[in-house]
């Protein structure tokens, strides 16, 4: 067996083991940490499959930011004693059999793939020079299927609205109660002072190189969100109030600019979300910058959760 294949095999076995253990373990905290490890391993697998764009997203979002949400939830002290009763052995056996059946059916599909493999790679490559882009994944996200990316921004907004609306009435437009803004000091403060500036540079870099190399608005936005959360956890930044006008503008900026450019497409080149000929790349960059900021803010707010303290008085913000 060659060394690269050995690496792939080790990675696959490890991922499988961690996933099975995440389901099997009794302790919720252990399961959450297992899931964070699972995300890291998946990111490595994506890199081995040659999809570095996805690997970056999985590492930053699937493992990093999702992990923060889950770790925060599992760290809450429980209210009541006792546990939910697990289903009986017959139900579990049936679930195991059905899951195995689905897995086997999928495996049959993987082992008998269509020949030749269907691919849109050539079609994606055909128009790259006109867009001025070298990274086909960015081209699909920002140009060919820009509508998906736009709608996905809307999904993020809806999720944030839904999370906010879980707050009791008296906390509406208040800040998240997760962090009280008191710096615990020591190593955390040091880390939160040094790391975010580097992280911001890295996020800008990811956004900048995404025209030709792996990277992009999601990856940059997720890194930015992580840095913001780090500063809030260290008490260096206050959790923002949901009613803050600046915050609301930041949240809306990305989808708004994207939508405006899309509507402008009717006037100039003649269709929704079509970019003016000759200016494709500048327009894409123009859209990506506010989109990255909005993604970062919404991700951070989703981790912070529903507002949990009353809003401060008017004019005090």
């Amino acid at each position: 067996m060659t060394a690269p294949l050995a690496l792939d095999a080790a990675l696959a076995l490890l991922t499988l083991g961690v996933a099975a253990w995440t389901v099997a373990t009794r302790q919720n905290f252990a399961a959450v940490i297992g899931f964070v490890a699972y995300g890291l391993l998946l990111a490595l697998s994506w890199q081995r499959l040659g999809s570095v764009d996805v690997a970056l997203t999985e590492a930053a979002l699937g493992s990093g930011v999702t992990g923060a949400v889950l770790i925060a939830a599992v760290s809450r002290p429980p209210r009541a004693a006792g546990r939910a009763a697990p289903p009986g052995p017959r139900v579990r056996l049936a679930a195991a059999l059905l899951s195995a059946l689905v897995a086997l059916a999928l495996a049959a599909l993987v082992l008998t793939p269509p020949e030749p493999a269907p691919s849109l790679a050539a079609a994606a490559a055909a128009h790259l020079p006109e867009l001025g882009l070298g990274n086909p994944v960015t081209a699909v996200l920002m140009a060919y299927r820009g509508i998906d990316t736009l709608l996905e921004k809307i999904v993020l907004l809806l999720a944030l609205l839904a999370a906010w609306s879980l707050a009791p009435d008296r906390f509406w437009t208040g800040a998240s109660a997760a962090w009280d803004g008191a710096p615990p000091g020591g190593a955390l403060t040091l880390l939160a002072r040094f790391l975010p500036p580097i992280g911001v540079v890295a996020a800008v870099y990811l956004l900048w190189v995404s025209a030709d190399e792996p990277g992009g608005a999601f990856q940059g936005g997720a890194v930015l969100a992580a840095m913001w959360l780090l500063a809030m956890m260290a008490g260096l930044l206050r959790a923002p109030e949901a009613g803050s006008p600046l915050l609301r503008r930041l949240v809306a900026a990305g989808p708004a600019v994207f939508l405006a450019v899309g509507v402008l497409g009717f006037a100039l080149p003649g269709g929704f979300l079509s970019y003016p000929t000759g200016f494709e790349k500048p327009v894409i960059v123009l859209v990506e910058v506010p989109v990255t900021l909005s993604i970062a803010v919404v991700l951070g707010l989703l981790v912070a959760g529903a507002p949990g303290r009353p809003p401060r008085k008017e004019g005090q913000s």
Partner: protein
Amino acid sequence: MNPATLYGLLACALVGIGLYGLAARPEPLRKILAFNLLGGGVFLLFGVFARRGAGAGFAGDPVPQALVITGLVVSFAATALAVALALRLRDETGDAALDAGDGKAE
């Protein structure tokens, strides 16, 4: 066995594990985790098909990759919302089944 097939079989197993966890674990937090395990497997299947569709000088078909990036963001939004709902419901009802923590005596 080539790497794409290896990761393809891994993805199938992950889907199976995720489905089982979704059905067999009663706690909401564990269902959310299992749902994400399942999602990871489904996304990895897309990665395998992207790899098989390599061409035009790219390491993989870019369309499934872009779909997965979009999917990851939506899956995060769903996860964050599900966690927020579970926590709020617990605060409201005091139902032990919704407790995410393990208790102090661990």
